């Protein structure tokens, strides 16, 4: 006769709670030198960078808010955010989320982990949460460090918004925080793409490269003259749409759409990674990615989501064109000019004027009126007109505009000399940058007019 070991003493295996698995995954992640190095770099390097650049005589004026780095500490974190959206955040997502599953393949530890945790589902959740935590820590480091670097080296001064109006330091602080928070959504989308690549492609380096490649493709797409609906349907748009927080009124529409699209991408890519992970055969030693299944389960739904989002945005908003129209450009330039003119007036201690008194307007043409008066390009030319109390002849100034496909523009002063001809203004307290010499602006793509 045979009998199995006393059944009354045996309890069915308890699965390891997600909280313990999460802690285990965090310990593993934090023990890696490259993660420690990244954390250190993200919490230190931005402060040094912002402080260093703020002390230079030449500022990165081709980067949004770069020209204001001498003026306020709040410009630094925004310059860093512009850089992070293009390079740092995709790379960070790649190194953390793009490797979190593949690392177990490389180390040959899947069976060990499964024997210990006893639930692939919980392993997936724990790994995803641990990567998310590390990514949040890194993003927080970039934001806090760059803000600290700016505030310590330059100070807590008002920030000039994208329409030229001054934001009080407290207001600027809130908007900087909101901008970094908004950038979390596309970062999560990239992280989810990283998870998907890590699950689908196993130890193949392509898994690790997926987030930067996706970010690069989306960046290139944003530079192309695509319809607004397509632009907004890409999860990377929220890396740009935070610009709308620094205009008055705030351009919330594109930002909210960008965030929503990014979050849907994050959810879908994570769900697809989850499905692929649960279908994996952990007893197969030769497993090296799920190949064709990765394409059908992983990539096709995301392509479908993009098509669906384009359709929804196109139906919900009148946005199948470039979104850059003559009247919108004129209004944006005139508004920014009026705000900045008042700033220049104050710097030069001239009698204060209100915007109502200025009645600034702009007449803008593209390609000297020879082409369609809409779309991106560096061939926009604007003549700005304004009025001063007691002066019968209105003032005029000329600007050459370089408008990019995402609606951002740089207006470069082309005379007269006394308004926008010189980079520096001679004020009673010394030389100061001339706000009207060159300024940044933003055209909201979604509004019809």
């Amino acid at each position, binding site marked *: 006769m045979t009998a199995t070991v006393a059944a009354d*003493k045996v309890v069915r295996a308890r699965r390891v709670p997600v909280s313990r698995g999460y802690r285990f995954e965090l310990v593993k992640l934090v023990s890696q030198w490259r993660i420690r190095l990244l954390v250190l770099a993200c919490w230190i390097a931005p402060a040094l960078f912002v402080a260093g650049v703020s002390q230079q005589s030449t500022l990165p004026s081709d980067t949004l808010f770069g020209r204001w780095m001498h003026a306020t500490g709040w410009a630094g974190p925004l310059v860093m955010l512009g850089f992070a959206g293009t390079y740092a955040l995709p790379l960070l997502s790649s190194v953390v989320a793009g490797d979190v599953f593949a690392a177990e393949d490389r180390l040959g530890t899947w069976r060990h982990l499964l024997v210990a945790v006893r639930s692939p589902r919980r392993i997936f959740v724990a790994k995803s949460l641990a990567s998310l935590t590390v990514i949040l820590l890194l993003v927080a480091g970039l934001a806090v460090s760059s803000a600290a670097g700016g505030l310590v080296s330059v100070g807590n001064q008002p920030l000039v918004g994208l329409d030229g109006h001054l934001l009080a330091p407290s207001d600027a602080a809130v908007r900087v925080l909101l901008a970094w928070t908004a950038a979390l959504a596309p970062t999560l989308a990239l992280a989810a793409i990283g998870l998907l690549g890590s699950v689908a492609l196993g130890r193949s380096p392509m898994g690790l490269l997926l987030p930067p490649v996706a970010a690069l493709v989306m960046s290139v797409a944003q530079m192309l003259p695509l319809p607004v609906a397509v632009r907004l349907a890409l999860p990377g748009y929220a890396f740009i749409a935070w610009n709308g927080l620094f205009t008055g009124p705030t351009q919330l529409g594109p930002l909210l759409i960008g965030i929503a699209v990014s979050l849907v991408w994050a959810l879908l890519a994570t769900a697809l990674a989850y499905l692929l992970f649960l279908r994996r055969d952990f007893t197969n030693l030769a497993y090296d990615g799920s190949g064709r299944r990765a394409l059908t389960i992983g990539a096709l739904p995301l392509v479908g989501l993009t098509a669906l989002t384009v359709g929804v945005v196109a139906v919900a908003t009148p946005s199948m064109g470039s979104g850059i129209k003559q009247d919108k450009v004129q209004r944006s330039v005139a508004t920014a000019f009026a705000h900045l003119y008042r700033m220049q007036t104050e710097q030069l201690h001239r009698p204060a004027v209100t915007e109502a008194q200025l009645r600034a307007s702009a007449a803008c043409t593209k390609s000297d009126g020879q082409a369609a008066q809409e779309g991106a390009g560096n061939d926009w030319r604007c003549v700005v007109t304004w009025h001063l109390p007691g002066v019968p002849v209105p003032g005029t100034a000329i600007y050459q505009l370089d408008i990019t496909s995402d609606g951002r523009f740089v207006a470069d002063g082309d005379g007269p000399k006394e308004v926008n001809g010189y980079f520096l203004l001679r004020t009673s307290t010394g030389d100061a940058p001339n706000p009207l010499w060159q300024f940044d602006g933003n055209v909201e793509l979604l509004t019809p007019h």
Partner: protein
Amino acid sequence: MGTLHAVVARGITKCFGDVVALDGVDLDVTQGQIHGLVGPNGAGKTTLLGLLLGLAVADSGRLEILGTPVGRAFGAPEGVSGFVDGPGLYPSLTARQNLAALARLRGLDAGSAGIDDVLDQVGLTAVADDKARGFSLGMRQRLGLAAALLTKPRLLVLDEPSNGLDPAGKRHVHRVLTRLAADGTSVVLSSHRMDDLEALCSEVTILATGRVVFSGPLSKLAAENRELDYRVRTSDPQAARRLADGSDGIRVVDDAGIRQDDELLVVRALVPALDELVASLVRSGVAVRELAPVVSPLEAAFLALTEQEQEAGR
């Protein structure tokens, strides 16, 4: 009182696509014994160990582990531990950190989980605070065993635990496994090292092409009616050869594939004929200095049984 079994498997079948990894496998592992699993590469050993560890589920058949029927869900019952395809260790953590992280994962207090004790049992106390990255294969094997011991298993499943072990490491591992079995833990281990299996196991199961070709005590395997080659070293090799040539049931083998030695005689015989030869050597005044099988009974049985199975499969 019947025999208690830690594992009872009946008719276990597992396929991977068109490949039949296990084909109606029966297995009984007695509580408190070390059960060896042998077979050529691709015989299904790792698949069977994976089923015991809950890494996969059988397509059909019945499996009971520690009294609990294993269903369709992944995960083995509480009390099962071990590793297949080598231990899973994280190179960026030290030996102690690897064990502490595992202890916390299993809900144990890392301080009182007996980490120092298991490190001592496997002989890794001196390198407890070294990163696992620099560990040799043998040290990794021992740390893997320590990780398995940490959970105080009642069924320990080990795949090639002696891989890469030096003699001292092997002694540590053998001592640990023997003590565990004495304390009532059942151990299932697969190995290609027949000397390990003969030293440790009371029972073995031989698998070939996914089927069980033998399962039972080692003594039964050795007693199977099978001729073996024996090395006989005597004081007078010439006389010994003459006597062997003249004995019934004894055949002198000159191409046994072992190192040539003038003092050594290799004979092929069943055990009773060999007994007769030894008696006649002694009666003739020839001293027998060494008598041992050229290959162990287990290895001989393994080769014979697996070759038969493979030929049957052709």
